[in-house]
Every structure is written in C-alpha cells, then in structure tokens.
C-alpha cells in the first residue's frame, strides 16, 4: 500500500479525479458486504471516505485553478488505471473534464455531503433507510462522475445510476411512500431515456460525444428536439415544471437524511449543472428558446409557491419550495447573459445551502416531536434554539430577505432581467412580466415561510411539547454551519463570493446599478440595532396579559390558539383559486397522472380485444398474413 501514498505526495489533477470517482463507488460497493448491524461502523467508514473525497475535491479545486486562468480546459484521458485489455478502444468514451464549473460543483457537492452525512450519523435510526451508507457513497461517486465526465454516454451512465440511488434512498415501505418511490423512479427514468434520444441526436448531428466539442445552433427541428430532450432530463432532475411532481411526494415520505441529500442539494446541483452545460456549451440559444425557458421558469416559480402556501405538512411545503426555487435558476439561464448565468449558478449554490438546511431542520423537528403537520406544533423556539435560529436564517434566505444569500442571488437575477429588457425581441420586451412574477414569487415564498417559522417555532406551545429538547450536537452543528454559509454568502456576496467563485466560471461581468452587499448588510444591521434601542427605550413591560373570554365565559386554554395554516385558507378559498387548488390536489395537472391515465386507457382498449377465444386468434394470424400479402404482391 505504499504506492498510493507516494502518489498522494505529488497529487496531480488527473489522479485526484480518478480517486474522487472510484473511491466512493468502491467503498459503497464494499459496504454492501457489511451487515446492517454494524451501522455505526458503516457510518464512520462512509464519513472517512466522504472527508477524503472532500479533501480531494478541494485539492482539485485549488490545483487546477491555474489552468482555468490560462483559459484552457484540463482534459485528460485519465486512463492510467484502466489500460488493461478489457477497455481497449473504450478510451474515447472515458473522457473527463475539469473546468471552472465542474470544479465548483464538485466542491459544493463535497461540502454538502459532509454536512449531511454528519447529521445522518446520529439521525433517527428507525426512519433511516436500510443500507443508507452504501447508497450514499454510490450517490456521491456517481455525482462526481456525472459532473466530471466529458463524454455524454459516460455522463448519462452516472446520471442514470443516480436515479437508482434516489429510488433506494426512500424507504418505500407503506402504501404512500412506495407510491412516491415508484413515481420518482418512473419520472426520473423516463427523463433519462428521453435524454438518450437527445444524446443520440447530438451524436448524429455533430459526430462527437464530447461536451466540450459540441456547440450547436438551435435552428432546425432536429436541433430543437435534441435541446428539448436534454432539457427534460435537466428539468426532471432539478424538479422544474412540469416534471417536478416527484419532488413534493419524495420530500413528504423520505427521511430528512435522504431528502436533504438528493432532491434538496445534489439533484439540484446536478440538474442545474447540466442546464448550464446545455445552455452554454452544447447549444446556442435562440430568442424562441429563451422565451420558452423564461415562461417555464416563471410558471415553476409561481405554481409551486402557490401549492406550497396551502400545505399543512412542513416537509411537503419544503418540497414545493424546492421546486419553486428552481424556477429562478431557469430564469437566470434563460436570460442567456453572463449576469444571468452567474446569477443562476449563484442561486443554485445558495439554494442547495439553505434548502438542505431546511430539510435538516425539518428532520430535527420531526425526530423530536414525531409530528409532520404544522397545526400540531408550535412554540418550539425555546426548546430547540439552534434549530430555530438556523431555520429562521434559512427561511429569510429563501425568501430573499437582505442581507442573506438568497437575496444576493435573487437580486442578481432581477438585475439580469432588467438588463435583458434592453435587448430586442419578444422575450426582452416582456421583461417587466418576468421581473414582476419573479418578485411576486419571492413575496409568496416569504408568506409561506412565515407559516413554517410561525407554526413550528413561534406561537403558543402545546403542553405535550414541554419535554422537547434540542437535537444532539452532531445534528445541530451541520445546520449551524449551513446557516453560517448563508449569512457569509449574503454579506460578502459582491466583495468576495462572486468575484472568487463565479467570475472564474462565467467570465467578467458588470452589475447594473450600485450594489454592495456588505454595505447593505451594514445598513440592515444598523437599522436592527436602532430598532432594538427604540424598543428597549420604550420599555418592554408595557403590556398586560388577560384571560381570554367570550361573552363572559372563560374559554378553554387549548382552544384559544389558532394553528398557523388556518390563516392561509384565504388563498385556497379565494374565487378562481379554489377551483384550481381543488383540481391540483386531485392531481389534475400532474404530468405523471395525466400520462398514466392515457396509457391505462389505451391498455384497456387493447386488452379488451384479447377475448381468449381461439378462433379469433387464428383469424388474426390469417388476417396478418393476408394483409402482408396484399401489400407486397
């Protein structure tokens, strides 16, 4: 075992890249041999592997940086491991690429994976999926593989395996969760198969499978079909309208350790990574495609957030927000400008940070209380202070409240839209619509997160919740770290984060208007301090509490509290909305259920022809022959 260490002393990007993909995969396969009894040992091994992968990805991020600055992409055959006979002539399919974008994604994948695994080790035993750690490691290895592959066939292999791990990471025991698992696998698998069509078309049109080697104009039906086929894959993975419907179901039924890992962070990173590849590398977008993307983007933002508003189950609520946020990224990429792309990527990273944080917080609350309905909870802020503060920060980030990171990236998207308005074409002339809907989506997000924070952490505490304690250190620490990231990325957005992380990826760009995140943060801080001073100066004891009574009768204490979800009924009962909501609840708009209905209808029609009567079957055979004869002779 001396040889690997010798190489370790002199790490090259190529070697790190191979190890990054191979080690988690190999360790994952190895863990299948370890019985489930030794759960803790498996967790520790997985942690060691993940930390090592994190170290490698950091190494990759820093070491290959120079080459990016020279403007060239590091592309290596990376076949030193594989040059035995089996893989002869397979070299052209085994190409990997390390550029600014993939390095960035790899780094954040590692960070998120480490934090989520840390949380998972002490997370609720009963809720965890059997074999979690091996599937976790395989997910990790395949994610690295997908992000780093340059060959599209290699890419779709890693990408497809991620569908299996997603399927295996949801327990799927009872009726509801097995239905969610099935739906997830069908939608993801369907999108992967559609992507195959796109890849085949690309291959046919360009004679190459290298992501770096393709740059197609979207000007005829074949190129547009290829573009759309690949877009379906990216949208389904990231969870954008109309292929999003697996995300809420998955989030409702999967344990926090799984939903924070895949739908909230890694799948988002991957889906948006591939979206960036499609829109920037593989294709040159036309005005029509930009318009389509913007429309899909705003539809995703608005419909998902409207659905989120009416949810009682906080995990489902988060699931819908996981969809809604993707809309912003799609809008960013749909703009096609450098600001837009940078904003989309920035929002992708931010979203992964706060959304996985929110799922972890939700998991913590569920572990301690065992309830998943907001109406059953309340007043947990004192009992679970770290979870509360972290959730508050995540909630403000996702709602785009300055100075947190969500604001920074959303602001960039708004700026991008305003810039875009200066251009020609129908998509540009409608800029005010995109801007208005994006801002509205943000406001509605805030509205629904008030429900989340208010309903779970604030308000009156039910007596049975008195014994609730904060989750263990290993569970709250990842949340705290993620919250810290959210604050730092927000406060230092313009000064540090964007120039250091995103300018190398997309190239230099300028902001429209004056905006310095640190200065804004300072202003926010000052105003909060001023507010506090006024509050304290005014004297905080100047209110009184009274027993509530109605018509002279003292009301029962318990009945006097109003569960947070009740306030949102206005939305669902409002005129036109009420009908739409009802149909949406009945899944009338779900592409999965719509196509299922159509397929089963056709299936029934065809089956009813199979009566089991033998003479009929003989007639079919003869008829088949006669028809063929008539056509041919």
């Amino acid at each position, binding site marked *: 075992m001396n040889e690997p260490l010798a190489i370790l002393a002199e790490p090259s990007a190529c070697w790190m890249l191979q190890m990054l993909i191979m080690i988690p995969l190999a360790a994952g396969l190895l863990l299948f041999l370890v019985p489930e009894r030794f759960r803790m040992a498996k967790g520790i091994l997985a942690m060691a592997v993940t930390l090592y992968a994190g170290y490698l990805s950091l190494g990759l991020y820093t070491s290959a940086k120079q080459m990016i600055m020279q403007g060239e992409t590091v592309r290596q055959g990376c076949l030193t491991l594989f040059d035995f006979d089996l893989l002869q002539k*397979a070299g052209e399919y085994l190409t990997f690429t390390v550029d600014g974008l993939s390095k960035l994604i790899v780094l954040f994948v590692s960070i998120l994976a480490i934090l989520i695994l840390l949380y998972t080790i002490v997370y609720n035993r009963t809720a965890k999926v059997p074999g979690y750690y091996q599937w976790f490691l395989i997910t990790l290895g395949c994610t690295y593989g997908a992000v780093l592959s340059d060959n599209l066939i290699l890419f779709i292999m*890693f990408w497809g395996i991620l569908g299996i791990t997603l399927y295996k990471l949801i327990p799927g*025991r009872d*009726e509801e969760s097995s239905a969610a698992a099935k739906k997830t696998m069908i939608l993801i698998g369907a999108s992967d*198969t559609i992507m195959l069509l796109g890849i085949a078309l690309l291959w*046919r049109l360009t004679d190459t499978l290298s992501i770096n080697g393709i740059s197609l104009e979207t000007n005829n039906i074949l190129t547009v079909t290829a573009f759309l086929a690949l877009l379906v894959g990216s949208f389904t993975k990231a969870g954008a309208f109309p292929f999003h419907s697996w995300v809420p179901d998955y989030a409702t039924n999967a344990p926090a350790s799984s939903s924070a890992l895949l739908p909230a962070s890694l799948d988002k990173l991957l889906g948006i990574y591939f979206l960036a590849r499609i829109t920037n590398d593989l294709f040159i977008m036309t005005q029509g495609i930009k318009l389509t993307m913007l429309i899909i983007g705003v539809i995703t933002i608005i419909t998902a957030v409207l659905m989120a508003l009416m949810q009682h189950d906080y995990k489902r609520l988060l699931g819908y927000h996981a969809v809604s946020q993707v809309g912003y990224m799609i809008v960013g990429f749909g703009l096609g400008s450098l600001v837009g792309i940078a904003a989309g990527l920035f929002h992708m990273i931010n979203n992964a940070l706060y959304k996985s944080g929110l799922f972890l917080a939700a998991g913590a609350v569920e572990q301690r209380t065992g309830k998943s309905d907001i109406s059953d909870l309340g007043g947990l802020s004192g009992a679970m202070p770290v979870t509360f503060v972290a959730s508050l920060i995540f909630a403000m980030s996702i709602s785009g409240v300055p100075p947190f990171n969500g604001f920074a990236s959303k602001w960039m998207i708004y700026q991008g839209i305003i810039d875009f308005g200066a251009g020609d074409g129908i998509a540009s002339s409608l800029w005010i619509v995109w801007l208005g809907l994006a801002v509205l989506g943000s406001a509605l997000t805030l509205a629904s997160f008030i429900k989340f924070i208010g309903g779970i952490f604030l308000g009156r505490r039910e007596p049975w919740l008195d014994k609730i304690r904060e989750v263990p250190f290993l569970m709250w620490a990842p949340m705290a770290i993620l919250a810290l990231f959210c604050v730092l990325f927000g406060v230092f957005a313009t000064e540090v984060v964007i120039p250091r992380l995103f300018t190398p990826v997309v190239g230099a760009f300028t902001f429209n208007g004056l905006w310095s995140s640190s200065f804004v943060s300072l202003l926010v801080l000052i105003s909060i301090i001023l507010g506090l001073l006024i509050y304290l100066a005014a004297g905080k004891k100047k209110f009184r509490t009274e027993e509530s009574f109605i018509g002279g009768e003292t009301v029962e204490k318990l009945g006097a509290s109003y569960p947070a979800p009740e306030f949102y009924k206005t939305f669902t009962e409002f005129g036109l909305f009420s009908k739409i909501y009802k149909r949406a609840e009945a899944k009338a708009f779900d592409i999965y259920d719509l196509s299922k209905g159509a397929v089963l209808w056709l*299936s029934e029609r065809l089956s009813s022809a199979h009566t089991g009567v033998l003479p009929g*079957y003989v007639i079919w*055979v003869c008829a088949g022959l006669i028809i063929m004869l008539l056509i041919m002779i």
Partner: protein
Amino acid sequence: MMNPLIPLFVAVPLAGAFLTMILGRFITAIPRYMALAVLLFLAFISFWSLVVGGDGSSVYTLGGWEPVDGVPIGLYLVHDGFSALLLCLISLVGLLSVTYSVSYMARYTSENYFYSLFCLMIAGMNGVVLSGDIFNIYVFLEISAISSYALVAFGVEKNELEATLKYQILGVVASFMILFAIGFIYWSAKTLNIADIRTVFSAGHDNRYYLLIQLLLLTGFGLKAAMIPFHAWLPDAHSSAPSPISAMLSGVLIKAVGIYVIIRLFFNMFEVTEGMSIVITTLGALSMAVGVFLAIGQWDIKRLLAYHSISQMGYVVMSVGIGMILMARGIRSEVAALAITGGIFHMLNHAAFKGLLFLNAGAIEYSVGTRDLREMGGLAKGMPVTSATSLVASLSISGIPPFNGFFSKLIIIVAAVMGRFYFLALLAVIVSIITLASFMKFQRYAFYNIDPGKIRNDIKEVPAPMLLSMITLAVVCLLLSLLALPGLRETVLSPATDILMDQLKYSSQITGM
C-alpha cells in the same frame, strides 16, 4: 475448420432425454442430476466453442458427405458467430432453469417426464440453431415445439390445459405455413440447403413466388417469435407453464425458433430487399408498441412478463429490420451493422433478464402461492434475495444503467437515430418508459406497499438452488453490460453481425465456392 463437438449439441441432450425417461423409472433421483449434467456439459462446450471458434465458422457434415459439384447433398450443421451466441444462451439459461427446477419441481409428480421433455426441448432448439438446411430446421422446430406443448401443460390443471390447447393449435397453424413455404421452396429451387437455396435464388427467380415464400415463412416464424398480430398464444402459454419452463420459453425458445430463424433466413437465405425489410421493421415496431400497452394493465405477474416478451422481441426485430433497410438501400453500412449488433445484443440481454424475472415470479409463487400482484406486498422483508435480484432484472429490462438493457437500448436508439428513423427512435423511447412504469408497478405491489406492521411473517425465502439460479442470472445481467465495451463487442458480437452482413460468406463456406 471442423469442430468435432458440433453434433454433440444435439446428440447429448437427445440421448439425455431418452436415458432420463428410462432410468428415471427405476431411480427417482436420476433425472434431475442427469439433466443437470447434460446442461452443464452443453454450457461448457458452447462457451468453449464461442471462445475458440470466435472468429471463424465451422461446418460439420453429418456422415461426411462432401458436396458434389458444389451442390451440398449431406446434412450440415453450421456453427458460426451467430449460432454460437444462441447456443451459449440456450445452455446457460437451460442450466440455470434446471438448477432452479431441482427445488421448484419437487412439488410436481412424475419428475422424470419433466426432465426428459426439458432435454428434448433443448435438443430441438440446438438443432434449429445449428441446422444448415431448412427442412431440418422444421423438424427440430417441431421437436422443441411439441416438448414445449407438453411442458406448458405440465401442471394439468384447467388453465394449463386451455393454454396448451391454444398454443398447440396456433403452433400448428404456424408449422403448416412453414411446411407450405418449404414445399414451395423445394418446388422452385430443387434444394433445401439454406446456402444452396441462396445460390439458386440469386441466379434468378419468379418474384411473386419468392415473396409468397418469404411472407409465409415470416408469418410462421413470426408466430413462433410472438410478433403482433401472431402473438395471442404467448401470454397464456408462458404464464401457465411451470416457472423454470416459462423462463426457458420466454428467455430462449421464442428466440431460438423464432427470432433466430427469421434473422438467419432473411439474411442468409433470401436476398435483403427493401420491401421485406420494411415489413419486418413494421412488425417489430408494432409488437414493441402494442406489447407494452398490453403488459402494463396486467395484474398477474407472469402475464405481465409474458406480454413484455412480445414488446422486447419487438425491439430486437425492429432493430435488425432497421439494419436490413439500410443494407437494402446500400447506405450507411456502419449504422446497419450497429443496428444489427444492437438487436442481437438486446436478444442476449433479454434472455438474461426475462429468464431471471420468470424465476423471480416462480419464487414468489412458490412462497406466497399467488401470482396476483394485488394479493401480495411487503415481500422485500421475507424474501430479500428475490427482491434484490428482481430489482436488478426490472432495472435491466427498463434500460437503467449500469445494467445490460441500458446498453442494448442505447445502441438501438442510437442506430435508429443515425439511420434517420427518428419516429422509431421516439417509439423505442416511449416504450422503454412504459416498460419502466410497469416494472415499477411490479416492484411496488410485490415487494412493498404494506405497512411494516401488517407484513405476513410466514413468508420465507426460497431454497438454495433457486437462489443460486437467480443470483447467477442477476450477475449475468451485470456482466453482459461489459459487451458494450468496444473491445469485447468486437470479439463477441461482431462475428455474428459479420456473418449476417456479409451475405455471401455463409453460402460460400458451405458450398465450398
């Protein structure tokens, strides 16, 4: 090169069948071990022949009758790249089915008949695959078909007997058409040797007879291959047979006596013409699309699997058909080769995953006692191995990486797109998605879908021989993906494609010209 092992492929199982029958009367344990030994031997020599004779073909002349003036007069057994693959398939799936039967068939009476018929069916299939003249193909086809009629009815319950009746009557209709076509061929070409027929027909023929012969053969073998609209016997027959037999029927028989013969005849006996290739492609596409819609509505596991066989065979025929169209047009021969390779690859893969799925269904029936998906649930807890292997098979058939079905579907879709058959590519994608959906349904209702508290505790995993077969096939499903690697593809699949693409090579090596 003459491979002396070739006649053993037919002789050993044939001898095994009769010896089993006789010896089994005296010692009850003999039949199963005898059948195992026969299949083990066949597996050994088939893989040995594949490895050794990988790049060349070998022709065995029965009785050593040499051609006279270039006219072959003896009986020829031809072992080339294509038949070698089929032989491996037959013996591998056969071996695993027999292993599985050792436990599974213990519930049935008269085991010696079972193993005897099993060997007879293997002998018939090997004969069809090796035979170099069309009349012997017919004879061996009947041997395997008749033993399969008996095997389908092996349970002798109401359903089995009805299924076998349908199977026999439709099978006889097909056999009649095949015999009729052979009569026409003999009348117009005065020979029955495939290579010789090719030579005679290419010298000149009456086009209308030629087409009639082709269509009669296509109908006859299309029925054996369960192409739509000739498929109606399949769901009943494949679901009523004992599960190891279903695995053989769906996994191997429809390929050996259906698909293989269609491909062999239309490439090596007839000239590839555009009209016929379009008909074949259409049949394939139709089977692929209609089969999957019929499958997804089923609640009986084995019927669901049986309908999927129709659909998956549609992929094979469609892909080969695309290759034929391109060959007939004389354009893009690389794409044609890719399409044919994809079809053959998918055929191999289908044997592995569909065989495995039927064995899984048998395991479920063995432990739970039902085939209705609505009456099961939560089996993942009691039957972890069955659950895991069936997930492998389900993902394979649905074309999810890294399993074998993904790669063959990838090749088929790429070939369809490259050959400018965009609609067929789209159809293949849609069918693949519906396949995935129906297998997710199978996974959900069979193995999950029940609250942990309500799971029946009396469900036990099946005995070791059955587990061994299932695990082996699951591993095969993974290993077959390696054939997608260019190096392996060229050594294993390309000889088969070459013998089909290079149309005259087959004739020349037999007639010696």
